[in-house]
């Protein structure tokens, strides 16, 4: 770590990681995995936000997709 800025590789890794977690968080039927993914999505989201790379509201989509309250 030699700079306070992300390298291109790190930025790509962060985006790829976010996309993968997002997909798991939205579609995975295993409660433990889905919950872990959602917590991790939130953590990675603030990292992306802090780097001015990505900003979005997303929980309402999961609500609409019917994965709440044991219906997933």
């Amino acid at each position, binding site marked *: *770590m*030699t*700079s*306070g*800025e*992300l390298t291109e590789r790190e930025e790509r890794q962060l985006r790829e990681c976010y996309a993968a977690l997002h997909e798991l968080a939205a579609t995975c039927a295993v409660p433990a995995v889905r919950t872990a993914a*959602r*917590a991790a*999505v*939130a*953590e990675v*989201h*603030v990292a992306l*936000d*802090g*780097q*001015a790379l990505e*900003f*979005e*509201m*997303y*929980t*309402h989509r*999961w*609500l609409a997709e019917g994965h*709440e*309250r044991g219906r997933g």
Partner: protein
Amino acid sequence: MSDQSFWNQRTETMPRAELAAWQWRKLRTALAQARNSKFWADRIPTDIRSFEDYVRRVPLVHKKDLVAAEEVAPPFGLLPSIDPSAGIRYHQTSGTSGNTPLRTFDTVRDWTWAVDMWCTMLHGVGVRPRHRGCVAFGYGLFIGFWGMQDAMMRMGCTVLPTGSMDSPARVRLLVDYQVEVLGCTPTYALRLLETAKEMGIDLAVDGNLRIVITGAEPRPPATVRAISEGFGAKVFDVAGMTELATVFTFECPARPGACHIIEPGVIEEVLHPETREPVGYGERGVRVMTGLGREGFQIFRYWTEDLVIKRPWHECGCGRTWDWYDGGIIGRADDMRKIRGISVTPVMVEDVVRGFAEVREFQTVLRSDRGLDVMVLRIEPNDAETATATLGERIGAQIKRTIGLQPLVELVRPGVLPRFEAKAVRFHDER
């Protein structure tokens, strides 16, 4: 070499134009989300084209508007932008004003953002992994220092939650664990010092505090000095709001009194208290807040009643491109009282009284005596035996010199006046 003073160097040092563009991108997303809220959808036009357009066309919102919108269908009424059942925690305002509290909720996403705002603040004032921290507040519905607790855990610090402890137990903890970081209200920091003294403990010598983070109340310079000397630590101001979920400003180590606005998370306008027109840098006005973080409980152009003086970023010199509030929140527009034509705020009185080391606690009461406004100052000295009549005279004279008003000063026995852990209420208008 990485500059370790920044939590996110990218957004803390980005050029102002780039920062404004990033804020606008986030605001646009937040406005689109707000279409899901009945309350906000009715207030905000659908075709906002720019930040200037936003300021021109979106009306100011007051706390009473939000409370009224909640009362339509408690607990959250018309406000939520998503189903509140997605909330992982509920909070509400402290209720120190005596009015109905405002209730809020946070999703996982919201709370993670709120905690990250706290991380920005904590890292900015020098908190690092492995620091031992103590959060001294009630851990109830009031959001207070909840974010600090979670942020320290997230950063890899060791944090001691002391919700159920009394002051002697907390003092013992500070010494036994050699705690380095303390978070509490300025009033409670003074209370801990008072308790330590009663226990025969000098926290500046026996403790290991390096950083004291005080928030939730305005704090005049005399109070800061007393806390800093008492703990032998650096004292940093922080301010947050339940309405935002988190902190929005913190005092910069590079310049005492310079409280940077965490601008990627919040848009702060400063308006004249009466005309409601924008005021320039260096002019006192009321803070109007737009939150850029929450997806569930959103806030747009909120008239906070907080009095502030904004200064441009480059006058700090720390490298952040975030503007700052000179002295943090310097008072409340709704705390301002006219006494015989003179404007007085609680902070003005506190700044004078805390300059007297012999004072342990105090209370200000405004009364009407045969049609004449009177300010009564009840002073509790450290030691009733050694307190002399001249103490009251000296305080009265200093108030007269500083504020221009002669108070009636009453000395009361030690332990008579109330103590506070959360927001202190020392100013009572009984007229």
